[in-house]
């Protein structure tokens, strides 16, 4: 078809001129569509529908109808008929795209299909609208996740919900935003919502019981709405101070809609707290209509209270336990008479009270709290605005205690208990500081084969990443090393010759080693992967683990490192189980693949025995570097014997220390967000890493391994 007269938006150019009347329109259409009109099909109805449109839109339709009619008059008729509704649903540039698509379809598939595009204008408008400008949660989740992580404060999870809100631990965002005509603006709305919800937690919105506050009003719904609005004003001011760039962008999103009511001024001041919002609510409830902005979330006091209460209790216990541990590690004798040794002091005044930080003092001297304690302080401050006195009394058992379940170990292993063919391992009793001899009974079992297509499906799912992975690992492997000063080799080592010549001139003998040899660097490395098969890995964690193993095997096959994979689980000390997935001397065969597919969650994680056993296997391999990599989803845990908690952690730590002494380097990849609280203690500060999104595990594990071994 001939090229259409593209113009800038005619709404702007001809806005001033007057619309054409129905008669005038009909006359023009009659002329254009003459070929397809008859006494029974006149242009009258078309003209009547076009008459109410603005002149520029009428011109748009007439101009295009003329262009289309040159190709096919029936198409032009269909266009004119569909145009009024279409132009209500889309702007003219989208309408042009619609016309072009219809004419393309007509060219290729004929009149019937072509006119169908005109008839389905609504569908096109929706599709075009979403493609052009919508931003989805999937698009932004990872970036926002990192963004929030950078903003500091408590680590927040992201999820979707019809209307945005936060329960103080998860931020719920809409699945899709298409409020504005561009992706940039819609992303900005996402960012603004997320920041606003972050700010609610950060700047103390929940330090008051909102449900109780609004319950005191005749219309609690309305009170909550007004409170949300007032609080949003306060938070906007907070954000404006902490993040001026974003503050400017929020102002843009609000448009010119700035509030000027003098009663609201106090919400903007730097020391305003949620108490001021509550006070202003009382003053303005009767007279101020609440407003709402595109980036405002909904307050859900009913969801917040339980989450917050549980966290406060948990963090209080953890904090006091951490202090106790600091005291024990500090080891200095207790100053006589001083019952409260810890205190806190506000560090150098910040201009922004919410950014106030505190120093922890021990006997009046500042101490640097370990990172997990610093995180706790931060989180407690967010909830309470201070560290209350009773928090500063050390107590508890190291923060690892969880409620103990009733130990009924006897019936768990009754009947399974026979010890032939089993291995026995000591266990470290932290409380008594000695080993319990032959305490654990461990068996090696086979993993049953799983779905045969699992590996292929995984490889297909991650095809581009697998290719990328292989390339990366090939580079690693292909890292040729130029060995200097060799007795035999491919080329002369000039440095050595010159030096040797010089030596010879001094009366020494010419050395023998004068050649260089190219050498594929021998990665003298053996790695044991120890995979958590405890019950807590059920579902997608298990899927991610298995996928991660598939990716890993692909990479390791390229690399040629020796590796073995074993799963571990168990229940009670009498039934520790190790599942063979791949032995060191076994190739990556179909059987191994189907065993990977067959990894299914079992029971608990008595880690100590598993580590001792796998370390023993690893030590049977000759290699310069031996690595024991654990893939874990949480802390050690067992059904009974109090393995849960500190005992389990200490035994695991002891097992790792033993492994380390025998020349093995342990490393842990975990998906437990709370890992920071116990993994550094078990593995050492740098020998672990957190992949805090399960979905990324398959992509990450091989990469972590690469970093670990280069």
């Amino acid at each position, binding site marked *: 078809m001939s090229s259409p007269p593209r113009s800038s938006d005619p709404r702007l150019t001809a806005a001033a001129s007057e619309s054409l009347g129905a008669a005038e329109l009909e006359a023009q259409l009659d002329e254009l569509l003459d070929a397809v009109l008859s006494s029974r099909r006149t242009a009258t109805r078309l003209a009547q529908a076009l008459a109410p449109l603005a002149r520029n839109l009428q011109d748009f339709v007439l101009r295009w109808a003329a262009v289309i009619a040159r190709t096919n008059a029936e198409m032009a008729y269909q266009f004119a008929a569909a145009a009024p509704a279409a132009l209500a649903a889309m702007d003219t540039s989208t309408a042009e795209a619609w016309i072009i698509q219809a004419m393309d379809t007509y060219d290729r598939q004929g009149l019937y299909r072509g006119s169908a595009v005109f008839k389905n204008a609504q569908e096109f408008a929706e599709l075009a609208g979403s493609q052009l400008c919508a931003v989805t949660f999937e698009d932004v989740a*990872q*970036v*926002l*996740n*990192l*963004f929030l*992580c*950078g*903003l*500091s404060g408590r680590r927040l999870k992201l999820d979707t919900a019809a209307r945005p809100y936060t329960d103080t631990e998860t931020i719920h965002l809409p699945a899709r935003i298409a409020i504005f005509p561009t992706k940039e603006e819609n992303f900005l709305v996402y*960012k603004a919502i997320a*920041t606003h919800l972050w700010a609610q937690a950060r700047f103390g919105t929940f330090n008051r019981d909102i449900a109780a506050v609004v319950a005191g009003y005749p219309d609690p719904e309305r009170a909550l709405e007004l409170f949300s609005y007032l609080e949003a004003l306060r938070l906007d001011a907070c954000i404006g101070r*902490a*993040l*001026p*760039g*974003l503050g400017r962008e929020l102002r843009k999103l609000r448009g010119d809609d700035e509030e000027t009511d003098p009663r609201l001024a106090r919400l903007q001041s730097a020391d305003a707290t949620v108490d001021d919002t509550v006070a202003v609510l009382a003053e303005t409830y009767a007279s101020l209509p609440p407003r709402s902005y595109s980036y405002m979330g909904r307050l859900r006091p009913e969801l917040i209270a339980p989450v917050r209460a549980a966290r406060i209790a948990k963090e209080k216990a953890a904090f006091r336990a951490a202090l106790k541990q600091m005291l024990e590690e500090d080891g200095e004798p207790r100053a006589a008479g001083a019952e409260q040794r810890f205190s806190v002091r506000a560090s*150098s005044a910040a201009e922004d009270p919410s950014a106030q930080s505190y120093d922890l003092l021990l006997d009046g001297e500042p101490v640097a709290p370990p990172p997990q304690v610093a995180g706790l302080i931060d989180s407690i401050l967010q909830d309470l605005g201070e560290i209350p006195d009773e928090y500063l009394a050390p107590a508890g058992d190291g923060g690892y205690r969880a409620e103990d379940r009733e130990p009924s170990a006897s019936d768990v292993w009754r009947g399974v208990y026979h010890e032939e063919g089993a291995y026995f391992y000591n266990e470290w009793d932290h409380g008594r500081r000695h080993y319990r001899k032959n305490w654990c009974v461990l068996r090696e079992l086979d993993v049953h084969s799983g779905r045969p297509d699992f590996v292929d499906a995984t490889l297909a799912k991650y095809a581009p990443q697998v290719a990328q992975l292989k390339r990366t690992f090939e580079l690693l492997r292909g890292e040729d090393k130029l060995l*200097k000063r060799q007795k035999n080799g491919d080329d002369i080592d000039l440095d050595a010759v*010159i*030096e040797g*010549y*010089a*030596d010879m*001139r*001094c009366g*020494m003998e010419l050395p023998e080693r004068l050649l260089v040899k190219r050498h594929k660097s021998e990665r003298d490395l053996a790695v044991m992967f120890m995979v958590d098969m405890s019950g807590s890995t059920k579902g997608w964690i298990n899927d991610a683990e298995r996928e991660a193993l598939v990716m890993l095997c692909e990479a390791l096959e390229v690399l040629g490192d020796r590796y073995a994979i074993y799963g571990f689980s168990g229940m009670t000390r009498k039934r520790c189980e190790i599942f063979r997935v791949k032995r060191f001397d076994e190739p990556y065969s179909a059987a191994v693949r189907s065993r990977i597919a067959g990894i299914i969650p079992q029971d608990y994680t008595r880690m100590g025995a598993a580590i001792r056993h796998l370390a023993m296997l690893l030590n049977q391999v000759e290699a310069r*570097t031996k*690595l024991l990599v654990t893939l874990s989803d949480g802390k050690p845990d067992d059904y009974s014997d109090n393995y849960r908690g500190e005992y389990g952690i200490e035994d695991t730590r002891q097992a790792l220390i033993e492994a380390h002494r025998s020349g093995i*380097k342990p*490393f842990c990849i975990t998906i437990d967000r709370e890992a920071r609280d116990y993994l550094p203690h078990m593995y050492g500060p*740098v*020998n672990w*890493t*957190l992949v*805090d999104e399960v979905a990324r595990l398959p992509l990450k594990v091989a990469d972590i391994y690469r*970093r*670990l*071994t*280069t």
Partner: protein
Amino acid sequence: MSPKTTPFHARVLKPEAHLIEKEPYYEPVGDEIALFEAAYATQIPVLLKGPTGCGKTRFMEYMAWRLKRPLITVSCHDDLTAADLVGRYLITGNETVWVDGPLARAVRCGAICYLDEVVEARKDTTVVIHPLADDRRILPMEKRGELLQAPGEFLLAMSYNPGYQSVLKDLKQSTRQRFIAIEFNYPQPELEKKIVMTETGLDAGNADQLLKLAQMTRNLKGNGLDEGASTRLLVHAAKLIRRGIAPRAACRGAIAEALTDDPEMLRAIHELASSLF
């Protein structure tokens, strides 16, 4: 001299003869100066531990100036041989001459020898410093059949980044246990701000925001970033801003792109920067 007529030339300096004359700008963070001076006085070698760009090299320059000793720096890499450190025979004309390596030169002239990123060096290279790093303080020069006894002014120092996770790069116990370790980290915000402002002349407002951004990237360490922005990166960004580059662009070039190639991480850092500026 006008720039047009100036021929391009670099100044040639002999490290052992070169004393740092002008006081390098160094902002003490803790008691590192006292520790270093005590180590120097008692002739115990020093190990500087810390992440990249946190002021280790600058500290060495400062201490060299303070103690009025030349500073000889060797950047270690995995091809560094013992001869590269100690020295070798070369031929000039018809004669062979012995040429000292940097370590030998430092010993001879009582300088401070700084082995940067020592874990990168091959393990068999690292051991040549062992006799020098214990109370014998001698450098064996096998080729010449000599032992070089270090004078009291000589000091061996090396740096090491314990944050690396590679199992292949770890410092041997027999090496690390010869040293007094001084731990470095990014300075406290107030101090780091002062450093950035003094180094670059950046105004306080922008410096505040840069520091917040630094903290944000440090929050991301372990969550997709291997390291947060170092003091060095802040200095770089500040210099760009001083040259009139818009802050957001400066942060992207000097900080985000320097930290990562991951597109989502880049975007996140950029969003953080544009929230601040």
